[in-house]
Every structure is written in structure tokens, then in C-alpha cells.
């Protein structure tokens, strides 16, 4: 039968159950196996801000080509809990496959599963408890079944198990491998023999892919950019950055600290940055709010720092595990008083890496805070990407002085006026470079000053960086048909969805174009220009007030051309839903025009 099987092109799979059931583990293992056989994978998590219990879900998209979002329909769903199936039923169709844990009985009539869908009940939990005296092995058992179903090789599954559970010790590995074997037996029982999966897996690419989240890519980029000091305080969804760096940074002589709060974080980072060390912090909304005074200090005292904001649903504590892009205002306008800053917004893990490198360079070249705006989706979703060529990274440190160059200078002024607004920096410890650095207004030497003439020049010096950096800032990436009447604007986790929606629309004969911002601040002319040039621009963003759209309008964007698509319910947008919105809005625009 294998010859006649369809190729695995594009499949979205959900595993859902109670928190602690291990749904994430199943999905992550499958993603890793897919990566290892040359397929593309993308994962998403839908979890709660609690450690055990509640309904959580993990989703995987297995693709032949690159897709940075989950599909609009779910092809395969594995549920350990019947609540979960009701929650997901609307994403199923008559070709979907439903695998449920039948330990507690059959599927109720009102499960919502559409007619025609293939339903398979397997008592995962019962087997797990019987064999291992613990319910938790049901996830390993179920992954065997899913692997079989989609056509993954038993050996590849085993290899992935060895890699993942090997780290947790021999016992954990043994039990999980046993569970995998049990799963394979159960698969046999329900008619899913080895090599008899639904699909043929064809490697998409000869070169190996990386499987990486945006958070990891940022952390990795920081190390390669020469980052050597990181401070953080645990907060979802940014914590992974700290955790990855805790493991890796010391191997390069770097330091990671987790002090008592975010105030300590940003000020400790300021201390490290003052010495000329490349420094970064990462946080999410509540932490970013607490760091506002420190942010302003960076601007005033001209201290380079990279600040990562992994955005989650706000305001306040909000919905800590859910995605949002609602800190845009705070990133762009936060801190009291006027000071220059840069806000960058990657859309893929690869961009996360490169933008972090860029952020480190910009921070030191222009001596100011550089923000990297992430969101929960980009931060935490795993994706397969082409390998990053980390060897190409260039470290640009800006105007730095050492003892030798200082010796040749008659006078050294930390805040010397200059054409580009940037003054040379001599790291503490350098003979001849003594300086005063302060968040008070100051003269060129860093002495506190309220002289009005000095104040005016210092303010202009700092602000002038926003001009001198222009050529250095990442430009928007454009996609689609340049002349199309329908445009998209988006950042972060909207990226994959917009690309897919464009494909769907193109297939329906509707050409579109897409302006993917990379620099949110300073707002480059290209973005307002785009909204003026394209008659209908869908600005897609995860917040309730259209922060990005408003920012574009404030800088000359054409409000009449803008259609805001706002998502703020904590649920990731699907391409098909975006397509629907586009069609509806275009219709209503045509009606209004008529």
C-alpha cells in the first residue's frame, strides 16, 4: 500500500488534555521527529497559568513547505479529556481523525465531532496505570499511535525518545521507551501497523533544519553577538530566554543573574552595560512596566542595553500564557520625558536571531535602549528553520576608546557634542577616560548642569541619533504583489498567518501585498508611505485598540486606507479567519463606496 499513499504535505494536529497530562511533550517529540526526517514543523501551545489541571492543548503543524502558523482546520486530534474535544470541535471537519482516551468510556453524543470524522478510542490512561502505575505515561503511549498514523518510522520515534528522556536519567528513559512500545502495540491493535501510516514522508530539504523557538533564537543571537551579561526575573513567556542563557552563557565567560525583582534586573544590567559589556534583559509586560524608570535612564545617560519584551495578554497580570501585542505603546512611548530609543520587531525565529545581533550593535553604536518586541507565539512556538549561519555575524561596537587612543587626545568628554549625536565611550578601568555618567541633565563632561543653552544642545544631541541611525535600521520586508490593492501590515506572530492568508487569497484570484515591519520605532517613512500607496491596508495586530495602526497614523499614515484587524481574546488567529475578515471588509467597503 505504501506506494499509493499520499505525500505528507500539510497536517495540523492537536493534542489536548488536562494540564500536566503532557500534551506539550507529545507535540514537541513529534516536531523533533519531523525535523529529523526533513519535514517542517510548527507548534503552538494553549496553556493556563497554573501548574496542573485545567484544559490545555498543544498543536503541531507538519508540513512539506515552511509554514509559520497552525492550519485553519485540524486534521488529527488526540484528547485525554472530553472537555477538550468540545473546545476544539469547531476546527474539525468530515475528514478529521479523532483519537480519544477511552479509559472512561465512549465519546458522548454531544461531543461536537462532525459527521464523517474517523473516531478512534484507545484507553491510554488505563494502559498507563496498568503498566506503569502512573497516568502520566499516557502521553508517551499516545505519541506512538500518532507517529504511526502520520507515517513516522518507529525507529525515528525511538531515537527522539532517547534524546529527550535520556537527559532525565536511565529510569525515565526506560519507562518512556516501554510506553512507546505499548503504544505501538495498541496501534497495531487498531489497525495502524508499522509503515502503514496514512502518509508518505518525503524529506523537504537535504540540509538539516533547526527546531527552535523565538526565545531561543534571541538568546542564541545574544551569545553570538558577544552578549556577556544577562539579568532576568522569571516571567511567562520570557523565562526561556533566561533559562537558555543560564545554560549557555557561562560557557563563554558570560554571567546570568536572577536578582530579586525587575528593578534590580534593569539596574544590574545598567551596571554591567556601564563597564562596556554587551548586556541584555528580557521580560514581559508587568516587568516592562516596572523597568520604565530604568529605560529613561538609559536614554538620558546614553547607556546601551537590549531589552526584550515577550508580550502576553494584558493589561496588568492579564492572561499570562496568552499571546498579545499590546505593549507597543509602552515600548514606543514609555518612560517619562523625551529620549531616543529603537524598537525592533522580528517575525520568525531566524529574524529573532538576526535582529538580536542587530539590536546589540545598534545599542552600542547609538548608546541607547534597543527593544526587541516579541509576543507569546513568536517567543514560545517551535518552528523548523533553515540553519542560521552564525559565522557571518559581525560585531560592531561603535565609538570606543582605549588607553592608547585616549593618550592621543587633549581632552576627553564622555558626552562630547558630535554630528551624529554619539560620543566616544571609554570603559571604566581605562586610564585617562574618567567620566561622569548621570541621569540628570549634564554638560559634555557629565557634570550636572541646568544651563539652558547646554540643555538645548544636549537634548538635540540625543534626539539627533534618531536621524543618524536611519540608514542602519532594518527595513520592512515586503511580500506579495507590489501593485495589489489589498495590503497587509503586521509584526511578530501575525507573520505566518498573513503569509498563509495571502496564499489562500491568491488562490482565489485576489492578489495582495504585505509590508512586514522590522523597525517599529523610529517609525520609518516606508510604513506610512505604504498605507498611502495601497488603498486598503489590513493592519493585523493582537490588541484591542489598534496600537500599531494608531502609531502609523500618528506618523502620517492614511487612516482612511487602514482596516484594523484586532485580536485580543488570547486565541491565535487562523489564516482562513483572516481571509474571511478581508473578504467581509472589502465587501462592506465596496458597499460604502457604491
Amino acid at each position, binding site marked *: 500500500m505504501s506506494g499509493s499513499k499520499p505525500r505528507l504535505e500539510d497536517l495540523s494536529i492537536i493534542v489536548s488534555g488536562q494540564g500536566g497530562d503532557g500534551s506539550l511533550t507529545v507535540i514537541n517529540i513529534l516536531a523533533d521527529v519531523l525535523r529529523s526526517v526533513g519535514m517542517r514543523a510548527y507548534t503552538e501551545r494553549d496553556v493556563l497559568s497554573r501548574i496542573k489541571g485545567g484544559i490545555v492543548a498543544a498543536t503541531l503543524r507538519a508540513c512539506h513547505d515552511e509554514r509559520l502558523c497552525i492550519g485553519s482546520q485540524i486534521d488529527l486530534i488526540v484528547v485525554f479529556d472530553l472537555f477538550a474535544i468540545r473546545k476544539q470541535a469547531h476546527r474539525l471537519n468530515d475528514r478529521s481523525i479523532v483519537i480519544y482516551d477511552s479509559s472512561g468510556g465512549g465519546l458522548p453524543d454531544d461531543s461536537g465531532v462532525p459527521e464523517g470524522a474517523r473516531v478512534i478510542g484507545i484507553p491510554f490512561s488505563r494502559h498507563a496505570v496498568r503498566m506503569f502505575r502512573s497516568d502520566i505515561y499516557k502521553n508517551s503511549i499516545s505519541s506512538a499511535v500518532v507517529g504511526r498514523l502520520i507515517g513516522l518510522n518507529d525507529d525515528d520515534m525511538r531515537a527522539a525518545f532517547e534524546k529527550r528522556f535520556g537527559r532525565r536519567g536511565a529510569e525515565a528513559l526506560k519507562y518512556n521507551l516501554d510506553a512507546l512500545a505499548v503504544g505501538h502495540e495498541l496501534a497495531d491493535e487498531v489497525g495502524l501497523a508499522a509503515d502503514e501510516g496514512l502518509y508518505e514522508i518525503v524529506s523537504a530539504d537535504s540540509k538539516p533544519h533547526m527546531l527552535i523557538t523565538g526565545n531561543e533564537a534571541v538568546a542564541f543571537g545574544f551569545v553570538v553577538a558577544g552578549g556577556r551579561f544577562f539579568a532576568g526575573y522569571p516571567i511567562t513567556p520570557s523565562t526561556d530566554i533566561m533559562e537558555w542563557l543560564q545554560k549557555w552563557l557561562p560557557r563563554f565567560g*558570560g554571567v546570568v543573574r536572577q536578582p530579586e525583582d525587575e528593578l534590580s534586573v534593569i539596574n544590574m544590567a545598567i551596571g554591567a552595560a556601564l563597564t562596556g*559589556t554587551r548586556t541584555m534583559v528580557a521580560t514581559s509586560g508587568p516587568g516592562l512596566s516596572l523597568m520604565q524608570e530604568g529605560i529613561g535612564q538609559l536614554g538620558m545617560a546614553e547607556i546601551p542595553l537590549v531589552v526584550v519584551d515577550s508580550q502576553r495578554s494584558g493589561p496588568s497580570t492579564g492572561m499570562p500564557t496568552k499571546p498579545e501585542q499590546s505593549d507597543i505603546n509602552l515600548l514606543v512611548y514609555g518612560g517619562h520625558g523625551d529620549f531616543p530609543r529603537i524598537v525592533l520587531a522580528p517575525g520568525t525565529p531566524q529574524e529573532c536571531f538576526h535582529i538580536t545581533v542587530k539590536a546589540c550593535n545598534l545599542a552600542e553604536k547609538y548608546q541607547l535602549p534597543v527593544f526587541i518586541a516579541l509576543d507569546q507565539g513568536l517567543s514560545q512556538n517551535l518552528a523548523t528553520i533553515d540553519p542560521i549561519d552564525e559565522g557571518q555575524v559581525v560585531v560592531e561596537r561603535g565609538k570606543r576608546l582605549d588607553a592608547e587612543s585616549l593618550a592621543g587626545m587633549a581632552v576627553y568628554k564622555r558626552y562630547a557634542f558630535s554630528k551624529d549625536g554619539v560620543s566616544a565611550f571609554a570603559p571604566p578601568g581605562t586610564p585617562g577616560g574618567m567620566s561622569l555618567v*548621570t541621569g540628570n541633565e549634564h554638560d559634555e563632561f557629565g557634570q550636572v548642569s541646568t544651563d539652558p543653552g547646554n540643555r538645548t544642545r544636549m537634548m538635540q544631541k540625543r534626539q539627533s541619533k534618531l536621524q543618524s541611525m536611519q540608514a542602519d535600521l532594518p527595513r520592512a520586508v515586503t511580500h506579495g504583489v507590489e501593485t495589489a490593492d489589498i495590503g497587509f501590515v503586521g509584526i511578530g506572530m501575525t507573520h505566518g498567518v498573513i503569509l498563509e492568508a495571502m496564499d489562500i487569497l491568491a488562490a482565489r484570484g485576489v492578489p495582495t501585498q504585505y509590508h512586514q515591519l522590522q523597525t517599529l520605532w523610529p517609525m520609518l517613512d516606508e510604513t506610512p508611505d505604504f498605507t498611502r500607496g495601497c488603498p486598503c491596508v489590513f493592519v493585523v495586530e493582537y490588541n484591542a485598540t489598534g496600537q500599531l495602526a494608531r502609531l502609523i497614523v500618528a506618523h502620517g499614515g492614511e487612516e482612511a486606507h487602514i482596516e484594523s484587524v484586532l485580536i485580543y481574546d488570547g486565541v491565535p488567529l487562523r489564516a482562513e479567519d483572516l481571509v474571511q475578515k478581508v473578504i467581509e471588509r472589502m465587501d462592506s467597503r465596496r458597499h460604502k463606496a457604491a
Partner: protein
Amino acid sequence: MTETFTPTRPIWCAGCGDFGVLEALITALDELQIPVHDRMFIAGIGCSGSLQNYLSCYGYHALHGRVLPTATGVKLANPQLTVVGVGGDGDGYAIGGGHLMHSFKRNPGVTYIVMNNGTYGLTKGQASPTSVTGFQGNTEEDLDPIMLGLSIPGSTFLARGYSGHPAQLLQLTLAALRHTAAGQGLSYLEVLSPCVTYNDTYREWRTGVFNIDSEDGYDPGNRAGAFERMSELREQGRLPLGLIYQGERPALESLALNPEFAAPARQDLNDPGLAAGYREAMQSFIR
């Protein structure tokens, strides 16, 4: 020599206790022959927080209350620097109080000098955590930060001086700098430093201080004993001066830094030797 900033004349009121702290610091740093370019001063916000402007050093004027985290970051990134934190009681005990306790616990190689005048000088005389009950309507008892320090495991050097006793103050300043230089971590020196304008305590302190350095049998190595003696003296309304506690514990930087590498601030980021490690990190995502 390259001309850099010129230390200015202090903006303090005539008679302000902070002059004594400046004096002691200048003398001690010279005596220990710390080159000016290896001195990094981290100052708070307040009258006291301008001290760094009056001597030759790398000076940083921190945010209000953030002297210690900042100084810790400096030290971890470049442990070769002599890092001195200076600030007021409002800065260090009110808004900075949480950092103080965590810094005792963390023990970074920083000398931290608090100019305690029992008031917020620069904002014109409000009550601070060390203000006595009744001062400006203060309903609370005054904090004794040395006792706080004693209560935190990890604290290694706790001392108190008085700007009216310059000889002892100099000795304590020297001892504090030496403690840190010896890799023992945080040396904390509180200096009673009267604010002649808003809380002139010269009279009270002249009679109230008690020199523990000259007390027979006092053992600064005994934490619980020190606590007991401090409690007694407090009940008698006396303010102990001297080296109150000294312990031994490795400084934070010795625990946090990888000795196989140059310190963060001193690394050559373009060293080609780094490439292999970066490659390995990259491979970890392909596995």
C-alpha cells in the same frame, strides 16, 4: 595627560556631615593606591549622591535607590574595578531597602557607604527610615540597618562611623575597602552624617555614640553576640560605632564568573576562538 572632568567643589551646605565622608574616602583610596581609573563610584540620588563629582574616578549617578544592583552589575562585569557605592539613608534604606537586604545576601565585591542623616536632605527634610519617632510626624521606630545586616546570612562586613570622628571613620573606610579588595565581598559602612539644615543631630550624636572598637571583649566575629550587644545599646539609646561584624564568605563574583575566561567587560568579542563554541550552540538546535 588627557584632560577629563575636573572634580568640582561640593554643593553641600557648610557643616554637612558628608564632607567628612568625602575626606575619608579620598584619603583611604590614596593610601590604598587605587589608581583613579580603577575607581568606579556608583552614587544615589540625594545630597549625598553627588559625592562622585568631587573626586577623580569613573562616576555614575544611579537612579534613586538603585546603587546596589547597579554596583553589583559593574562588579560582576569587571571585577578589576574598585566599586564604591555611596548614597543617603532615604536612597539606601527606603526605596533601596529591598536591594540592601538582597545585597547582603548576595555579597558582591562592593564597598557601600551610606551617609545617614536621618532625613531626606535634598527634598527638604522629610522623615526617612532612620528618622527617630516624632521627627516630622514619624510614627515609626527608626531602623537600625546594621541589625538588619546581622540578620541576613551572607553579610560579611558591617560597620558604622561618624563624620564627627574622622580618625575612626578613616580607619573604617580603609577596613571596608580592604575587606572587599581581599575578595570577601560587600563591605557596608554606615556613616552618621548630620544634615545641618534639616536634621542637625550633631548634639545628639556627639553624646549618643558609643565606640565599640574600644570595648574590651567585644567580638566582631560573633553574629549573635553582636546582635545582642546592639540590642542592649539601642535600649540604652546609644549608637554603636566601629566594626560591628566581620565574617568570611566568598564574594559573589568569585562564584558567578567562569574563571576560564576574561571577565565580561574585558573580553575580545571578535576573538576567532569563539567560533567553535557558537557552532556548538547552533548545532544544539539540530541535535
